[in-house]
């Protein structure tokens, strides 16, 4: 009787242990799904695009025939866009985070700004496109020009930069600031000479990551009028423009198979730039981040 029970118990325990092991394998498998899809994606893009990728492709303007098509106009357009986005969003983003972290009184207004930024981060990017279309394209009558695209993108990544800068500012310990006050420095002197320099690596890392999100964004640019058929390079803020993801979208959407290879080559260039930007972000963080 007792032995029978013990046998049953042993069986039960064994089952539980086996179930645990089996589920562990299942969980591991699920984790690998993400990694495998990522590997497949890279493999697919490389096999489709590498054959078409050449210096000629990088330095050619868009063209209606796939043998001549290149990504140069998209590349230059994206760089112009990034410059506008970086200037606008860094100034406004860092200033916003400084206000929230250093100056904002603990009141409703500061709370509202905080909650608002959290919600802005969840607004679909295409809605920013509609905002840009109404305000920048029509109301400020910029038209379908670089500046309208840049400003729209700047607003889009503003929440990311604000949150990253806030975290960087918060990581500067109070002792350092108090030492500065103790030397007779004013609030702004302390911020400009102590807090900001100490938080700068964190802010830069966050900014580069935000910019790498912007450089791959397509939907809002389509709405504010980045065009695919642009055969000249932009030479001012009010030029007509195109951008890398716009070119890739346009090539992908064409029915002939050859264009898929062109799109693949464009994606390789885009991913390479993203890789470079993210490496720089990691480098900045590891090299210059101070641990207090």
């Amino acid at each position, binding site marked *: 009787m007792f032995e029978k029970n013990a046998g049953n118990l042993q069986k039960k325990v064994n089952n539980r242990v086996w179930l645990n092991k089996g589920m562990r394998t299942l969980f591991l498998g699920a984790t690998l799904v*993400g990694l495998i899809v*990522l590997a497949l994606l890279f493999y697919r893009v490389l096999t489709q695009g590498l054959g078409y990728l050449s210096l000629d492709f990088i330095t050619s303007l868009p063209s209606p025939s796939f043998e001549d098509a290149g990504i140069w106009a998209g590349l230059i357009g994206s760089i112009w866009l990034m410059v506008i986005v970086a200037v606008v969003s860094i100034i406004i983003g860092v200033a916003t985070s400084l206000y929230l972290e250093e*100056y904002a009184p603990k009141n409703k207004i500061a709370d509202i700004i905080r909650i608002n930024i959290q*919600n802005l981060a969840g607004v*679909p990017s295409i809605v920013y496109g509609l905002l840009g279309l109404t*305000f920048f394209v029509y109301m400020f009558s910029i038209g379908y020009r670089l500046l309208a695209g840049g400003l729209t993108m700047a607003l889009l990544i503003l929440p990311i930069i604000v949150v990253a800068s806030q975290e960087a500012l918060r990581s500067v310990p109070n002792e350092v600031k108090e030492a500065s006050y103790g030397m007779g420095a004013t609030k702004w002197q302390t911020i400009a000479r102590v807090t900001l320099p100490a938080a700068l690596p964190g802010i830069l890392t966050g900014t580069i990551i935000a910019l790498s999100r912007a450089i791959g964004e397509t*939907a809002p640019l389509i709405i504010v009028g980045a065009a695919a058929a642009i055969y000249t390079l932009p030479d001012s803020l009010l030029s007509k423009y195109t951008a890398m993801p716009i070119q890739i979208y346009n090539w992908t959407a064409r029915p002939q198979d050859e264009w898929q290879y062109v799109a693949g080559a464009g*994606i390789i260039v885009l991913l390479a730039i993203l890789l470079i930007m993210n490496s720089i972000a990691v480098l900045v963080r590891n090299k210059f981040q101070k641990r207090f």
Partner: protein
Amino acid sequence: MDQLLNNEGKELNVQTLIEDKRKNRMTGNIIEKIIPVFLFLCASVSILTTFGIVFTLLRESIGFFSDTSLVEFYTGSSWSPWSGEFGVLPLIGGTLLITVVAAVVAVPIGLMSAIFLSEYADDRVRRVIKPILEVLAGIPTVVYGYFALTFVTPILQSFIPGLGIFNALSAGIVVGVMIIPMIASLSEDAMNAVPNSLREGAYGLGSTKLEVVIKVVLPAAFSGIVASIVLAVSRAIGETMIVTIAAGATPNLTMDPTESVQSMTAFIVQAATGDTSFGSDIYYSLYAVGMTLFILTLVMNLIAQYISHRFREEY
């Protein structure tokens, strides 16, 4: 007597020193006063952005709803704006269909990844796998769209005969892949926040790891997990490029994922790339659809925030 000279070579006396000091302090004071104002103005840009979005969507939508009634818009089941039929249900249906497919892919995989990373993987494995998973979140959506159209769809076609080039299934699966890292990493954070003392209590009673996960960790981290799923679903609803490229442009009120559908976002892209003239019905319909999309995602984000604040277990 040696003359004291200041660094500009001028004679130094106490009177001018005091003067200089006062002047410096005054400019200093002005800076101290101006800076916060400037910073506040910059901070208010984010508020203006919100107002801008709401104002834009409202104003142009009101223009739209003066021609088409709200009831007609939200109950009509035929969407063909170029012939004047504005029933938004097919677009909402398309969005939901793709979102459901995405959730079916992403919720189990994301949750199981989170459990593995948080409970089973040792530190070394986690430190390798987590950043790689995050790469998935950083891939531009246009690249996912390309992947869906040129890779996933042909594979699906070999399993499902008669599947069209544009279909909701392929787009939904790839949107799901895109939101896996979001569910995985936010849920993992929630599970990590469960204190070890709870786990050890369960181990002390003889639980296996799986039992600890299912009976202790998951219930304790429940609010964070639900919030992560709601956030990810809201991201899927707002996703544009994958859906535009892979799901096609057929407004289609169906629950069959093998058909081509058009989502709200895809319609906005289609209308904006076509020659839609400023002030036309289609131009205004862009904003009515955008408004619907905005409200839908905003409500979901607010729900996620509410859940994670309201039901947070404090230890």
